[in-house]
């Protein structure tokens, strides 16, 4: 197999993969412009701008989306902070119990969500804690913590920590070293991990179901529950809006990365 033939094959396969990845996304976007017959927005009828003109028609849906965003923001901050601290400890220090901590981090990933959710529900009941936004936040932070810690850890391992020593040797104070060398090195990994946990929290259904109070509705919980009776086009509209928003953020971060990489090192 010659190089270019192989390359073409890989290229095709890769493009195929990307197409696969975005096919349902295309469906979501396209169907946000659909004027459905009946209660389920699942069969294409005809094009309309109506849904986009009235995206907030379904109060419950809108408040569910806002609620989800708030929870996700809180959970990713908590998980981001705690997880990064853990990752730093694991990568930069050698201490007893390190492998136990590793194991502890992996355990939530091997536990079915329904187990984590129901066991948390039992816990809250036993402690007399009322289920509500707080319990949802606590639960989401928990499972995001593992993801953040593992992601940041993987990222930190690849970093060149000798740069820190170099900076210090060159006379930079610890604070300056941190500000100009360590922090910039660590931040991209942390931000990526926090973004990951943001989306994990936004998407969670099962755990949320168990730890939320009767009236609390997150976006996935709303979709799952309402699916028994309908699938409103506003769901597609708001999803598309969130998608566009995150694409925008992605574009911004790419631009930011470019600008940072054109700054020559040493000029802090």
């Amino acid at each position, binding site marked *: *197999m*010659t*190089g270019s033939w*192989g390359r073409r094959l890989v*290229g095709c*396969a*890769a493009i*195929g*993969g*990307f197409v*696969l990845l975005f*096919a*349902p*996304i295309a469906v*979501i976007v396209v169907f946000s412009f659909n004027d459905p017959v009946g209660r389920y927005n*699942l069969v294409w009828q005809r094009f309309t701008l109506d849904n986009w003109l009235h995206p907030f028609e379904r109060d419950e849906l809108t408040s569910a989306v806002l609620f989800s965003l708030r929870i996700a923001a809180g959970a990713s901050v*908590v998980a981001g902070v*705690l*997880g990064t*601290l*853990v990752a730093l*400890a694991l990568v*930069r*220090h*050698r*201490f007893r119990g390190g492998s136990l*901590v590793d194991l*502890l981090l992996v355990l*939530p*990933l*091997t*536990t*079915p969500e*329904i187990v*984590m959710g*129901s066991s948390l529900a*039992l816990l809250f009941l036993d402690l007399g804690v009322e289920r509500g936004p707080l319990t949802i936040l606590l*639960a989401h932070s*928990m499972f995001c*913590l593992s993801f953040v810690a593992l992601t940041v850890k*993987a990222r930190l*391992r690849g*970093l060149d*920590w*000798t740069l820190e*020593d170099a900076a210090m040797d060159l006379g930079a104070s610890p604070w300056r070293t941190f500000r100009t060398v360590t922090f910039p090195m660590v931040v991209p990994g942390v931000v990526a991990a926090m973004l*990951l946990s943001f989306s994990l929290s*936004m998407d969670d*259904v099962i755990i949320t179901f168990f730890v939320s109070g009767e009236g609390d509705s997150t*976006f*996935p919980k709303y*979709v799952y529950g309402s699916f028994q009776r309908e*699938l409103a086009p506003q*769901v597609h509209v708001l999803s598309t809006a969130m*998608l566009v928003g*995150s*694409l925008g953020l*992605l*574009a911004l971060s*790419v631009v930011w990365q470019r600008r940072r990489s054109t700054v020559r090192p040493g000029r802090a």
Partner: protein
Amino acid sequence: MSTRVGGRRLTPYLLVGPGVAWLGVFFLVPLWNLFVMSLSTKRSRYDFDPAFRWDWSNYGDVFGTYGTQLGRSFLFAGVATLACLVIGYPMAYWVAVHGGRFRAALIGLVIVPFFTSFLLRTISWTVLLADDGVIVRASRASGVLALLRAFGWINGDRLLDTPVAVVGGLTYNFLPFMVLPLYVSLEKIDIRLLDACGDLYASGWSAFRRVVLPLSLPGVFAGSLLTFIPATGDFVNAYFLGGTSSRMIGNVVQDRFLVQLDQPGAAAISFLLMLVITAAVLVYARVLGTEEMTS
């Protein structure tokens, strides 16, 4: 590459403390609670305070009664993981090796689907796989459906509400979990290594097999884990895309908990599932080699 700081004895513990405490309270304690529950017996159907009694019978029932679903879950998850590997590797490779300046953006694109609801993406597959939709019609015309029928994976003229759809859904939903770790490990490979292979007259395939593949194994390992494990416990795909013979162990646990109100039984199934997964992971790690992969 990383320097280890022997330094201050207390620091690592202080760093790790909050996170571990969080996980301890919100993960370990409830799990322990659940373990106790799995060894308890209910006096009646509506007994909400089962008595702890070292009752192992809940565990005994699991393989016997739910062996099918358990096996099916591993089968589906396994096939899906393999499919993710086959589809995801070219994607990760292409972006890592040929992506050039656009690497970050391209890999960012892989994450983008996460910013829509997992539920909604799965539901959208019911549109794509609709009985009269393009995909099904093409499959029918090209004989793919007949092939699947010959294998006994579908019976009838449709893709939706079949095991094939469920596996497809699992593959789709967990694809990014495979691509990202693969990309991370492939990206680290120095391009010059590949050029060096070329200079030494190694063919593209040979270079791949001997250089790239081994170096990417950590990514393969991580990706497979991140795909296989959640896939076994999933029930959303089976719920929306499956028919009458596609229920997975996640659906069983849900049923045990909610419909049968059999918390001890559900707890037992969950723990067994966790054990089997952990064992499978350890075997996999052994097969793939070094301990460094369990990072």
